[in-house]
């Protein structure tokens, strides 16, 4: 049998169809609209409750209100908090409303948490407004597994524990995973991770078990402001596109979609976002690419290298071949 590796790495349109599911439901996904997120973390808790994940660390980080730090084996939803000296749309904040006395003004001139060693809060254009003009906004965003169209974790899994479901989502099968850990460095988003406790990897399943009985994922269900929207991916993408236009029309120029483009490095994410700043500010890679896109090239190199080694070693042996061999001929 022969495989076209390019196809293997970049598949056709619908992942479930490619995955060999004849009759399958529409591909579903998450649209996380961070512009209406209130940072309540209901998603984090609802997720842990449903998936019975462990509490993973009681540490005060000083990273604004984020004490969960990031996605991992026991944190499948993570709300990021970013404090910025920048205006959100036409929002008016008056955190430094009056001219302050000279000395205080000087200290206040450095009103950016940079002085606290928190790089996230560097003003986007590098300058802090004067005290009177200082803008401020507090960004919150609930991160989750992207359920990529071309999922590196799933591609590299040697056991088939990670697999594509009929819903087009990517799920770890606990009964199969042997904890080889290959998927961990393969994920371009740093989503999946290995549980020290049971040696297996874990990540968001988009509540595979709930989907099968027609229930929406726990996080989306709990979200008080509909910041996390669950539904058919195509419909969500349309909704998201319209949403960005609406925001721009109202002066929120920094609104942009992340992971919604089917032509991006992962073929479009099943869970995409509306962000209000560059992805890296939220801890997301600006231009993620599924590593297996380059795998064909790698295999060619491997073939070359192997052949080279074979030939080379024979050559170095034969070149100095001793008499007896010739004699035998």
């Amino acid at each position: 049998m022969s495989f076209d590796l390019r196809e293997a790495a970049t598949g056709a349109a619908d992942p479930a169809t490619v995955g060999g599911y004849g009759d399958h439901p529409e591909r579903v996904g998450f649209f996380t609209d961070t512009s209406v997120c209130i940072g309540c973390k209901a998603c984090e808790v609802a997720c842990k409750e449903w998936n019975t994940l462990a509490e993973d660390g009681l540490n005060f980080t000083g990273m604004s209100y984020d004490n969960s730090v990031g996605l991992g084996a026991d944190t499948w939803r993570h709300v990021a908090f970013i404090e910025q000296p920048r205006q959100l749309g036409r929002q008016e904040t008056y955190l430094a409303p009056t001219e302050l006395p000279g000395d205080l003004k000087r200290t206040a001139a450095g009103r950016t948490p940079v002085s606290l060693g928190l790089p996230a809060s560097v003003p986007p254009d590098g300058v802090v407004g004067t005290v009177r003009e200082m803008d401020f906004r507090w960004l919150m965003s609930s991160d989750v597994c992207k359920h990529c169209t071309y999922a590196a974790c799933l591609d590299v899994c040697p056991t088939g524990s990670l697999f594509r479901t009929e819903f087009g989502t990517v799920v770890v099968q606990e009964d199969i995973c042997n904890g080889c850990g290959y998927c961990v460095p393969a994920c371009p988003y740093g989503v999946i991770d290995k549980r020290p406790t049971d040696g297996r990897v874990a990540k968001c399943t988009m509540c595979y078990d709930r989907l099968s009985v027609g229930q929406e994922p726990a996080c989306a269900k709990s979200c008080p402001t509909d910041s996390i929207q669950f539904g058919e991916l195509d419909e969500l993408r349309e909704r998201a596109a319209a949403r960005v236009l609406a925001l721009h029309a109202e002066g929120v120029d920094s609104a942009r979609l992340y992971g919604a483009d089917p032509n991006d490095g992962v073929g479009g994410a099943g869970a995409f976002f509306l962000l209000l700043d560059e992805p890296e500010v939220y801890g997301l890679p600006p231009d993620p690419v599924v590593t297996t896109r380059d795998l064909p090239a790698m295999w060619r190199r491997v073939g070359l290298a192997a052949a080279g080694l074979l030939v080379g070693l024979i050559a170095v042996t034969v070149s100095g071949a001793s008499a007896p061999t010739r004699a035998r001929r």
Partner: protein
Amino acid sequence: MNRSDVPAGTATMTDVRLDRAPDLPAERDAVVGSAGRPGRRQRGERLMVPKAEFRSYYGRPVLNGPTWQAPDIAGYLFLGGLAGASSTLAAAAELTGRPALARGLKAGAATAIAGSLYSLVHDLGRPERFVNMLRVVKVTSPMSIGSWLLAGYAPMAIAAAGSAVTGRLPVPGRLATIGAALLGPAVAAYTGALISNTAVPAWHEGHREMPLLFVGSAAASAGGLGLLVGPGAESGPARRAALLGAVAELTMTRRLEQRLGPLAEPLQQDTGGALIRAGKVLSATAALTLALGGRNRKAGVAAGVALLAGSLCTRFGIFHAGLASARDPKYTVGPQRERLAARDRAAKEPT
């Protein structure tokens, strides 16, 4: 498409409305700040000025670094290469009438592959489930392909060694020897793809050089082994293999560092950098010794040890460099930003 699996409404469940007025927008359409003062900044937000200096989320890594343990996986990279190349060299030696060298290399290959298998299984979170590796065949997963390769190679390498050492079953032994020799190079080379096929910047971006670098390193180590186990009279191939391998290893490492640019930092700094430098020195010294030292047995042994050590250092160095590149977000964000910038420039160019 048939939607029977999902009751209608699944997709709209987060869209509950109360006032029976679907024409009214839902709260998710709320535009924060829209009612603020337009006058203060006519165009609403200041548009983003593209930033030169990179930004991150509190300096946290974007990636989850490999959970692999250095002794296990870096060790495996080394042992796998050593075994693969040794099997081939052994067969070649045997066919050219160098039985002693062949026997030594076969034994070495068998030991190495046994060790590498141990490392692989030992690194698993669920070692008892190692057989799941043979549950699927995935061309998209070098580890899957590698598992199948090892499944074929390891028994033959061990059989070959067994037969050679005991002198029993010469014919199957010969077949095993040839089989192992043919699979050996693949075993030595695929690990290059194994680590490159990840999001770890230093590994992935090095995917062009990695396989050649690894086989070079493998050849060098196999040659080194040959110099140790083979009698002086038969050590010619080993010496030449070692030279060839060492040169390949050094050139590819150089190529790698040159091509990666800023991403090469992890290959030059800290643990990774130190190990790689040590590897270079060891291999280079060994190569020189061999080139100059001629057939001197002592020199050969010394060089052999140096080559093995050099290959080992290189593998561990590359392993650690990878971890370092995953740990610092700038290695993830920086190159991607440049890629985007380049794409924008390309888009702007008139077609």
